[in-house]
């Protein structure tokens, strides 16, 4: 397998949303909480924060679940690739991911899946402290 993957340590997440804002900025050109491929589920009262993002798992249930075969693994980058033309916007992949790692863009009616920013994930860069999201290289 080539390409990397993301590893999330929710216990280290401080809920700052830097990853979310940066992801939206890198992919959509503007800062928002809705335009990112990562989100942080937050309970502000109990201070529970859980980053949700595709972790490029080995057995991708989203690929299996897609009824129109619009999802596949990009062998070069190890990311989940979306065939935009084939996708019908049914959201089955969103529900199939056990990690809640797939978002959905209501405007384009397409899933939002992490593309690892082409190899240097911006979320990892802005999370150097507290290091709740790390990039795992394929060979350790």
């Amino acid at each position, binding site marked *: 397998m080539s390409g990397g993957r993301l590893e999330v340590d929710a*216990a*280290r997440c*401080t*809920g*700052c*949303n*830097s990853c979310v*804002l*940066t992801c*939206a*900025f890198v992919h*959509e*050109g*503007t*800062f*928002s*909480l*809705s*335009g990112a491929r990562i989100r942080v589920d*937050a309970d*502000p*009262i*109990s*201070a529970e*924060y859980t980053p949700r993002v595709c972790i490029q798992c080995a057995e991708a249930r989203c690929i299996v679940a897609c009824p129109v075969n619009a999802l596949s693994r990009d062998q070069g980058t190890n990311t989940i690739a979306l065939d935009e033309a084939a996708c019908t916007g049914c959201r089955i992949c969103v529900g199939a991911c056990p990690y809640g790692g797939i978002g959905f863009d*209501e*405007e384009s009616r397409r899933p939002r899946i992490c593309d690892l920013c082409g190899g240097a994930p911006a979320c990892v*860069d*802005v999370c*150097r*402290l*507290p290091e709740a999201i790390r990039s795992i290289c394929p060979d350790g």
Partner: protein
Amino acid sequence: MRCANEQVVLHVDLSYRKMWHEIVPEMVVRRFLGGRGIGDWLLWRDLKPGVDPLGPDNPLIFSAGALLGTAAPTAGRATILCRSPLTGFYLKTGAGGRFGAALRFAGVDHIAVRGVSEAPVVLWIEPGSTEIRDASELWGAGVRETHRRLQEDCEDSIETACIGPAGEHRVRYANVMLSVYHSASRGGAGAVMGSKGLKAVVARPGRGSIGVMDPEGFHLASDRARANLLEDPMANNLYHYGTAGDVTVFNDIRRLPSKNWQVAHIEDEEAESLGGRSWEEAGYLKRRRGCSACSIHCHRFTEVGDGPYGGTASGGPQLATVTRGGPNCGVGNVEAVFRFNELCNDLGLDAISTGSSIAWLMETYERGLISSEQADGIEPVWGSEEALLGLTGRIAHRQGIGDLLADETLAASQRVGGDSWQWAVQAKGMSPSGVAMQSALGYALAFAVNPRGPDHLHTETIAEFGATPQAREVIQRITGDERYAVSDIVDKRGEIVRWHEDIYAVTDALGLCAFTTTCAYGIDEGLLAKLFATATGVPMSSEEIMTAGRRMMTLERAINLREGLTRADDTLPWRIMNEPNHDLTGVEDPIVSRAKLDRMLDAYYDLHGWDRERGAPAPQTLRELDLEFALDG
């Protein structure tokens, strides 16, 4: 998508239930930047001098910093402004969390609330819509409960700015709580909110977004700022230990004002358990937290597992909460302090004024001016956890003795009489944060001239201690000689304070955390200008942006002069100026004498171009700062 250069004011009149929008003119954005700056401009314009701070005519202004919603490091701060019901002067208070960013995503940068609602209301703001909703059923609820019930009304995440019972009961130092645990404290903005019948402001970010004018430049400037902060030792300490990590630091050097400022040191063992450096190992630290876009993450969430305080869980506590509720009241049990913190957060109380008012009562009791009967049967002796926690609840509800303390120490001492004013450790009617001013003269001057009262959240001058290479470099740049990075000399304090004021004001206006520019020093004037210019497209040099900070400080001065401020108000607590504190070791003259303060004030006024009689800006000063509109007061 909204652009960072557009700033929208939502005006709300609660008496007439009217709302309208105003676009801030670009020239005003250029001169006042955003956040606190635009808030100052609105307050000058909309506040009539002499109005009742708890009446309908006191505008309550919420201002999100100019960079909020972006990922610029620490861009999470919102400011609240009004005339303070505690001091009668200008009040700026601020907090982080995620409310400010959510407000901008919801389409609003500033909210100016006036009037009074007959029944409790919530102001609900989301992209494309603003609404005043009934909040009768929320009145009386604590902060957590308020947030929880408001969140139940919405499928998406919301952020709230709300008051607890203290604000409803108009405690003169009631907080507004942002994102549940982030307190906009000092000076009673929560009481103003309560007087208006406004229980909460809700911001629902939804699918709102913020664009910047030069994405590449902004990204580069943000990266540089983040990298600088990662390398900064102060920022690193804040991440690991939180602000309360400094309890042991201050105690070790005998600079921990305790027992109502009578001593400066507590038992080492007590300090260790109270200080943030021990919380992780002791199992209290559940999580480190960060405000929106934070890269420091100083905030904490702490829990107590079992024992008499078992089940206590809340955001914080911060250094000020620990020192004012703990050692200042003689309390050394960290678990009791965690409970004090939880109460202050949920009731919406300023922990500094609460702890200080209780400490004043303890000394008043010790000196025989008040009896246990007068204190509702509570025996307010030093170290009594029962007194600390029982009085905190009473203050929030103005219950019994709590009503006396709810107006702070100056007002309480006027009612109790005798010499009790001497140990009402206050200036402008407000208790100071716990900095040993006698040996930190930059702080002493900054506290004396702070327009909102004596604390560190308008001007941190931490560089004067020279504790890190970054701090010494800042002093070198300000004064031309890093040898001035010693805190117990009068020389150059005016210069040091003024520079820190300017950069603090800019930091507030942009919505960044003061720890980036006046504590960790990872972001300098050049980076601030770069971030602002690339975000807004408004050209800005480092000199211009610091001038904008000076402009804010000067307009705040003008607001206070309009409210009747004189040079005599630029002072420090009587105890600090008159009772030598020999517990402060290594300090030759352990008071800030009138002569010392006067020397610093003269130098400070001269630097500002303010007269020495009142500290009033000269007409020429106002013109140079493009503040002609303030010429006629």
